[in-house]
């Protein structure tokens, strides 16, 4: 098999835990970083055989806050990855970063390691909003970080912003977008604030200390933004993502196109050889399990992946649903001929019942041999996706 794969590396460390965040991220565990780097290298070795002959076309360091890793630590990890995997010379090599302490020397160091894409978690260009989100940086630091990335030599820089914050005025959101546009990022990701169960934000909302985000206001903001970014010559290519031509995030496209990827690190997810699986989320547990697996591999006793703690094999039925659900997130939608080639059935026929209401209420449309969400459908994606799930 000469299929390419993507590589995701999870760095679960943050300086503080943001109130809305339910990612696998931990504050105050920085002391684990050296051991964690070593574990990543070992885990890479564990997967070496299974991914032989599969060139890696994208690498993505996500978190957490990967930019918390000192350059030297990063070098160890990146070298480890290169020795275990066949990483293409022109691979997209991304890193998620928070604006605080992103200075030019550090960024230049990353560039030297081969990173060629940077995604900065700005979230807002208003200090009071940043504070409400528990973010550690200020609006001006975000701008500084962006400029530092440019002057260090990054030619592919993305900005993340969050909309639909509680009580956020449209004008405030518009201000953040305009500030972002001034910086001329190559890529923009916009996420609506979601109240995730179990987070401090969810508790505040439940106790009435914070109003819950208003979905109608979020819809208004989203619609305004779509127009604004189009004017600014960004291509809307996925529900939450916009890019200048040629700057789409190749790594994330592998998810939406339902292609395979390997995730390394605590709580990382993979889709490999037709199975989806996840690694132990707790960093200390992860370290312990990787170590055990690695020892067994070294002394030749077994090749068990003890760090993998859950998984499911993807049945053709599930695969079809995943392909549609993920693919519909792309603005271009799902290519019907490709679907037919992959599954031997016609998607519109096979899902005619499930899609009848989405068609009736103009949530989806059939255009240019693609099934795709309409602009209205982009805001109501779940209504379509939930219907496509197998029973």
């Amino acid at each position, binding site marked *: 098999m000469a299929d390419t794969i993507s590589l*995701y590396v*999870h760095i679960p460390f943050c300086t503080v835990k943001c109130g809305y965040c339910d*990612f696998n991220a931990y504050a105050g565990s920085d002391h684990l970083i050296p051991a964690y780097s070593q574990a990543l290298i070992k885990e890479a070795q564990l997967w070496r055989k299974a991914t032989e002959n599969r060139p890696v076309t994208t690498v993505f360091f*996500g978190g957490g806050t990967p930019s918390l890793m000192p350059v030297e630590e990063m070098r160890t990890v990146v070298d480890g990855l290169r020795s275990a995997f066949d990483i293409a010379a022109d691979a997209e090599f991304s890193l998620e970063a928070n604006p605080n302490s992103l200075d030019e020397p550090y960024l230049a160091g990353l560039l030297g390691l081969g990173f060629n894409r940077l995604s900065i978690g700005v979230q807002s260009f208003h200090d009071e909003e940043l504070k409400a989100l528990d973010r550690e940086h200020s609006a001006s630091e975000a701008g500084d970080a962006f400029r530092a990335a440019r002057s260090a030599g990054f030619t592919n820089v993305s900005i993340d912003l969050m909309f639909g914050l509680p009580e956020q005025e449209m004008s405030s959101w518009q201000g953040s977008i305009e500030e972002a546009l001034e910086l001329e990022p190559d890529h923009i990701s916009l*996420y*609506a*604030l*979601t109240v995730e169960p179990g987070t401090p934000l969810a508790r505040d909302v439940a106790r009435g200390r914070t109003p819950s985000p208003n*979905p*109608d206001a*979020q*819809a208004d903001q*989203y619609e305004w933004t779509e127009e604004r970014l189009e004017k600014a010559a960004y291509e809307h290519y996925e*529900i*939450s993502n916009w890019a200048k031509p040629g700057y789409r995030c190749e790594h*994330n496209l592998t*998810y939406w196109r339902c292609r395979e*990827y390997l*995730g390394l690190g605590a709580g*990382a*997810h*993979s*889709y490999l050889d037709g199975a*989806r699986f*996840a690694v132990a989320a707790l960093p200390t547990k992860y370290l312990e399990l990787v170590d055990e697996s690695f020892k067994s591999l070294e002394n030749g006793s077994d090749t068990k992946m003890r760090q993998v703690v*859950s998984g*499911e094999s993807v049945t053709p039925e599930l695969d079809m*649903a*995943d392909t549609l*659900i*993920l693919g519909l997130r792309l603005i271009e939608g799902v290519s019907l001929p490709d679907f037919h080639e992959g599954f031997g059935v016609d998607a519109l026929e096979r899902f005619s019942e499930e899609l009848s*209401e989405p068609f009736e*209420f103009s*949530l989806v449309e059939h255009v240019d041999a693609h099934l795709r969400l309409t602009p209205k459908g*982009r*805001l*109501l*994606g*779940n*209504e379509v*996706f*939930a*219907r496509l*799930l197998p029973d």
Partner: protein
Amino acid sequence: MERSHIRNFCIIAHIDHGKSTLADRFLEQTGLTRGSRVEVEQVLDSMDLERERGVTIKAKAVRLPYKADDGDDYQLNLIDTPGHVDFSYEVSRALAACEGAVLVVDASQGIQAQTIANVYVAMEHNLAIIPVVNKIDLQGADPEAVASQICDVIGFSRDEVLLASAKEGIGTPEILQAVVRLVPPPSGDEAAPLRALVFDSKYDSYKGVIAYVRVIDGSVERGHRLRMMSADIAIEALEIGSLTPGPVPADRLATGEVGYVATGLKDVGLCRVGDTLTDAEQPAAEPLPGYEEAKPMVFSGLYPTQPNDFGPLREALEKLRLNDAALSFEPETSVALGPGFRCGYLGLLHMEIVQERLEREYDLDLLITAPSVEYRVRKTNGEEIVIDNPAALPPPTEVMEIAEPWMTITVVCPDRYIGAVMELVTGRRGVFDKMEYLQGEASRQNEDSVQAGERRVSLQYQIPLAEILVDFHDKLKSMTQGYASLDYAFSHYEAAKLQKLDILVNSEPVDALSLITHSENAHAQGKQLVQRLRQLIPRQLFDVPIQAAVGGRIVARETVRALRKNVLAKCYGGDVTRKRKLLEKQKAGKKRMKRVGNVEIPQEAFMAVLRLERKS
């Protein structure tokens, strides 16, 4: 056992006044259990639901071997009585099986409305009554005040009232002695043909229906062919015996004895409480008096949320009815909800128990429509019909008159709450009958000790049943800080200005949301109902108008605005499984709703009418 040494009695008590604890003590005293509370609970209070609600739904009996102070051995039969007013017929049959009753009143609470009602029934049956003030060990107890209250209300002299603490075991021997001394032994004709009163029955999967009986005349012999007189069916006494507390088979139950008869029947409906068992060869001429058919008072529609659960729902109802002869149901079809059942219950508590058991024990997702009473409708063409479903009310042009059931209710509470109770009752079309102070002559001398506003009164009203179906009891409790108790009984039918309120969702009438209401309230209730529904019906993919109509005229309208945003933001680092889980949750949420036309309506919406305020 010599008939002169048999005593059949029961305990009359308000919920939580200590009936189970006292029964527990009786068992201990007579050596049946070694103080194991759990076992006793199993004896008298076995269903989980009963325990949670603090009511005993099914009466059972325990035989206690007792050596009295006179040195003789006695057979005491303790017959348990249901503790809720919905089961007043069952209580009356249990009382009819006894010659005596121990009246237990909590020393900190005083006598309650239902208790008084039950004591009156016991008196009608000529039962010897042994009044006991329980919980005298409690800090806030006022045994003397409660004793004098009992004397005033029921007419005892103070020295007849016993003081006890069931918890500490204080007074238990005295109570048992009083039972032996004061409760007369059973009378009855040993030579007459068998007549045994069924005071309870239950379905047992091994033995079939078990009848709990009190032999009035003659005797039951094992293996004899018997007859249920009212049901008019033949049975065989496959096994007979007594409960001590487990079943102990015997060959014979003699005149005056209490025990069980395994009938082999498959349907408790054929072995109804109050029926008379007689001998098939030598039948009695007349059954025992007092038998009544089960008379449902409250009705509601039960619909499976998923249409293919109709079969399982029917099976579940059939199984429930095996053990609950008072439950009635028949298939009905709602235009909006499809096929389901119309169920009849003895009362609201009975309804809640049935619904909870269906969901808990049979794991069914149900849609329950608001409870309704039975209306008698006289049509313009002279025809009279009875309806228990608002949807079945003919159009106004065909209706001459609608009559609804009225109840007599009695509220007992401290007199400082008279105003609050009066307001609550008259706000629901209730009419005042009479008021009595429960402290009379006997306690006049220590009147000073009773604080102003603390004297207990009994208030009696007439009120439409429909007005107390929903939240009346809760409101009464909260307005009186839990001090009021309530008793109710059917009174009569009365014509009223009633109208049907229809609800239209997305311009389609939803029959299951219709209700019958008093004309005065119709507009205000229509308005409130559409407002509630607007909050309860989730936003759909299109605007959903919700309208209320009275007599074909729209009186209120609200709109559930179309949903605009429902999409997952993040990609979660490729965690597709998690994303799918979130979608599955959304999908499952939809499944729990009922699709009416194009609109998904959650269960709560069908109960919205329950939360309506009365007054315009």
